[in-house]
């Protein structure tokens, strides 16, 4: 793989640190007027999701990580694994619960996901940025509370919990931003 100098650093770059693949999620250029520049980056481990802070100086470089994202359909989950299929080659791959991590909160059967492969081996998956899920449980909203910013807890079909506006009822379909885990809008009423 290519090696990247500090001036190549940008959000979204995938790099190899201590022999594990990381994604640059934030970066900051710091420099005292007369002093040496420091490139501070926040990186997310693509295997276990851990976030680290690293710093580099001009002239340093890091190896790129061979990361490929493949759009695959989530098939089903059994006791040990989540199973995915490539819609064109029909190739099937599996990931453990640990590898799927928080993404499991948003997966429903047949959903299209990005399976992340490192050196050709699947290591994790990203759900779509937005998913539409059915509300399976929420308390009825109190009358007169339908306009403000008042929210209440709700459970959706995957078992995930989030806050929704009070006008949302059980069996409504809601759009959720999986990156923040937040409610976006109501898609259809029950």
């Amino acid at each position, binding site marked *: 793989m290519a090696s990247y100098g500090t*001036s190549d650093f940008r959000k979204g770059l995938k790099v190899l640190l201590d022999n594990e693949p990381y994604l640059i999620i934030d970066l*900051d*250029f*710091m*420099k*005292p*007027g*007369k*002093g*040496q*520049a*420091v490139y*501070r980056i926040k990186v997310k481990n693509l295997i276990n999701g851990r976030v*680290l*802070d*690293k*710093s*580099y*100086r*001009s*002239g*340093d470089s890091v190896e790129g990580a061979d990361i490929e994202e493949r759009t695959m359909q989530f098939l089903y989950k059994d006791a040990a694994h989540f199973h995915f299929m490539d819609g064109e080659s029909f190739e099937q791959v599996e990931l453990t619960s640990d590898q799927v991590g928080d993404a499991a909160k948003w997966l429903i059967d047949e959903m299209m996901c990005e399976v992340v492969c490192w050196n050709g081996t699947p290591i994790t998956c990203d759900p779509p940025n937005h998913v539409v899920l059915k509300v399976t449980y929420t308390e009825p909203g109190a009358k007169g509370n339908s306009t403000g910013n008042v929210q209440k807890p709700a459970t959706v079909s995957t078992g995930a919990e989030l806050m929704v506006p009070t006008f949302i009822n059980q069996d409504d379909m809601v759009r959720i931003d999986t990156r923040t885990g937040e409610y976006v809008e109501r898609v259809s009423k029950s």
Partner: protein
Amino acid sequence: MHGAPQIVMMRQRAKLLARAREFFAARGVLEVDTPLLGKGLVVESHIDPIACQVTVGDGRTEQRHLLTSPEGPMKRLLADGSGPIYQFAHAFRDGEVGKRHSLEFTMLEWYRPDHDHHALMDEVEAFAQAMVPRVAGVAFERLTFQQVFQDSVGVDPFATSLAELRTTCERLAVPVPPGFDEGSLHDALDLLLVAHIEPSLGTSRPLFMHEYPASQAALARVHASAEGHQVAERFELYIDGVELANGYHELADPIEQRQRFDHANRVRVADSRSALPIDEPLIAALGSGFPACAGVALGFDRLLMIATGSKCIDDVRSATTQ
């Protein structure tokens, strides 16, 4: 959609420029305008110029540089007897892109014959108070480089080691770059400064940090402190964690200045960066008529960021191309 807020910002910028010009006019400081394109440079270890090829009169090409600061040409004017001068100059620094850095930025630089850095700090304080109403009634704090390091991270910069600085970084969760243990003490202190100390400097009230270690003197005079440390007659102004201005009691010794430029070039070459051509007319000027003076460079874009509460330098500049 971007037009409207940008135009509002340009109006605020124009207002601040006008106020700054009034400040200097009232004090009899002459506005000057010097070339941005130069053959030689004020050579610094960690500031990279942008080189460009130009065609001179008879079709020959020559390498020039967009200046990283107007210091050289302004010091030549001082040597020719200009008296106090100031300038709003665009400055160019390769590779400097970030929330507070831009490849091209506006520097307000001024020089005061017969001032030392303490007298110039007084004037910079008056200037900042005239520009930013929020700090108008506030007495600025003055702390030495040593005091700042001792108070904020418990390190004496004149009696520390790379090992102690590594432990300090680890204690404060400051990530240490590769090669830290083989680097210089000076670079390790800078790392702690930008990554940990700086964000809190000048937050309760503006702060002048002064008496830098001699290794960070650049173009400032050096003297022995009361404790016997070699310290540079240099200061920096911090407001709200932002490094806003850098000033010197200017070195007026051409031999010493050449040695410092040569040293900076050796650091550059050791870092696998190219040595830079020295501003020879500047060296000549230091040896011929250059007055005792103090000078300061203030990041005008950063001043506007502070005055308007902006978080990113691109928000206060016109049509940035990055």
